[in-house]
């Protein structure tokens, strides 16, 4: 049964305005408890890992997890092959850097502004792809990402061009010293970002809007005939996936204190996309788990030099060939506790 048919069946039962509850769908209370436990465990990690290197790895995991799980919203749930997602992250990086460094804006406000800039960019890139499908969306969004990068490189008097920007103002928490606490404060800011983003994403995909974009993905003609607007939902999907991606970019800039055009590069895009696909599309949690696995795996092999990306590549290939459902699908079939309704699109 496709999601479109499910929505249809549920429409008759559910009161108007309420999000339909499908059979076999995990009740939201149980999911909320599971999420709470999961994040509580993550919140205790700085007390286990007290050195700044381990915390740095975890902070990078959280940043990647936010970017990958938001990509899963447009790619996995929406079925929109948005290859410009990394550009939204890069726009967050540069919006924050330019606003704090050149305009002297307050870092926290600039972080929100990074998210808003990414939303504006997402709407701008959605307009040309409203008529397009499949591979054409990949190519236009890919072109968009390259266009943004080229514009940033060419405006070198503001952006530093290929040199990038350094000494970007960072975040502050009252008078707390952000440098000498072994990344304690950064850890909780990053975790807070991941919590907000994940709660938002899960609430979105469980809402009527979330169900309608899955319906559009699975059976566009039928969903449209049931009164779902393709144009509106696609705009909402891309805009929703952009905000926390942009904020994550802003946080990344504040944390690294520098910005370079490498954030638009193929290697970062490949890594984040592998997280989405390795985790299993259309799950949100899968991308977060894969961000954790891939980042820690890659850090653990830091001594292998040029062999590291090769081992990572082989890992990606093996999982893609052997487990179409990704890591989340693997876990799901191993434990069987998750409901059938969460199965990723095949």
């Amino acid at each position, binding site marked *: 049964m496709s999601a479109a048919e499910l929505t249809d069946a549920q429409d008759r039962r559910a009161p108007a305005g309420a999000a339909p509850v499908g059979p076999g769908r995990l009740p939201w209370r149980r999911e909320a408890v599971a999420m709470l436990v999961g994040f509580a465990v993550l919140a205790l990690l700085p007390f286990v890992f007290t050195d700044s290197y381990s915390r740095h790895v975890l902070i990078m995991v959280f940043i990647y997890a936010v970017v990958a799980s938001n990509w899963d919203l447009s790619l996995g749930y929406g079925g929109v*092959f948005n290859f410009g997602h990394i550009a939204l992250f890069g726009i967050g990086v540069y919006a924050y850097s330019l606003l704090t460094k050149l305009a002297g804006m307050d870092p926290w406000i600039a972080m929100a502004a990074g998210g808003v800039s990414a939303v504006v960019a997402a709407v701008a890139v959605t307009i*040309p792809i409203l008529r397009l499908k*499949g591979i*054409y969306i*990949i*190519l236009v969004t890919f*072109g968009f990402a390259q266009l943004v990068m080229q514009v940033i490189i060419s405006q070198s008097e503001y952006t530093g061009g290929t040199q990038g920007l350094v000494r970007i103002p960072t975040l502050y928490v009252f008078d707390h010293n952000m440098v000498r606490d072994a990344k304690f404060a950064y850890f909780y800011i990053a975790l807070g970002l991941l919590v907000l983003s994940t709660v938002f994403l899960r609430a979105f995909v469980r809402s009527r809007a979330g169900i309608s974009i899955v319906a559009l993905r699975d059976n566009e003609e039928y969903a449209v005939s049931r009164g779902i607007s393709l144009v509106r939902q696609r705009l909402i999907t891309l805009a929703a996936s952009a905000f926390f991606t942009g904020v994550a970019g802003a946080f990344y800039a504040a944390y690294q204190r520098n910005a370079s055009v490498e954030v638009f590069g193929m290697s970062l895009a*490949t890594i984040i*996309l592998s997280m989405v696909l390795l985790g299993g599309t259309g799950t949100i949690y899968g991308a977060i788990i894969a961000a954790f696995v891939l980042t820690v795996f890659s850090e653990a092999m830091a001594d292998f030099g040029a062999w590291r990306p090769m081992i990572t590549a082989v890992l990606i290939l093996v999982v*893609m060939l052997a487990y179409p459902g990704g890591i989340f699908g693997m876990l799901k079939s191993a434990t069987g506790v998750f409901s059938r309704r969460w199965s990723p699109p095949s």
Partner: protein
Amino acid sequence: MNTAADILFGGLFQGSLYAMMAVGLALVWTTIGVFNFSHGVFMMLGAYLAWQFVAWGLPAYVAFPLAVAVMAGAGWLLQATVVRPLIGRANLVLVVVITTLAAGSLIENGALVVWGPRSKQVPPLLEGNIALGGIGVSLHQIAIIVITPIILAALWFFLTRTRLGLALRAVAQNEDASRLVGLNVTMLYALAFGIAAALAALAGIFLGGYRFMTPVMGADPLLKALIVVVFGGISSISGPIFAAYVIGFFEAICSYYFGLYWTPALLFAALILTLMVKPEGLFTSGRSRGLA
């Protein structure tokens, strides 16, 4: 007169290179319906193999064809390992993007381990420079401008005038019907990938002969090939070839009048505009399998 000569020569040269880069990508897309994101890495590997064979003492006229032949085998191998097992998956296009990217990363870093990061250069096809219409050009560039149309014409002849080529195009148009009339679809997939990889290797040898090669040299040509294929329309082989020359001249004109910095931005803006107005590409008529 120098302006005209500059633009004419620059456009022809870039156009020839882009055509060589893009035609293999287009061939794989039209037959199998996937984008091979390791195409750029194949150009790199072809160039490095050619360099290696020359370093072993083989003359260039043996080393270059040998590199191209080995790469055809590599293309077949790639297809057999990371593309064919996935045929039939619903999100095939997306999964192949990631598997070919991963395979490309594997080859790229493998080349880094084997050959190291120091830049190398393949001997040019022809040594020397000449002055032509008031500008100095190298014979290597002239050779590329002359050889590319010959190879493209040979490919066109193969695809339209030979049984095997017609079979390839039949698979591109309707896979199920091709199977029904007894074509070996699996073998034809392998053939398409093999030819594409051989063409990529040749493009790599062209590139390696006039600028230094590094293990990451494939990234930029891949991007250019993608743009060319999108511009030209991804349903045919001839579309991207015309588009390659159009883009070559577009770039030559832009970089002459607006400067090198603005050329990529203008090109991408033109690309997005083209797709908004004519999503199926400039040189196509009717619908392609890409619009599914």
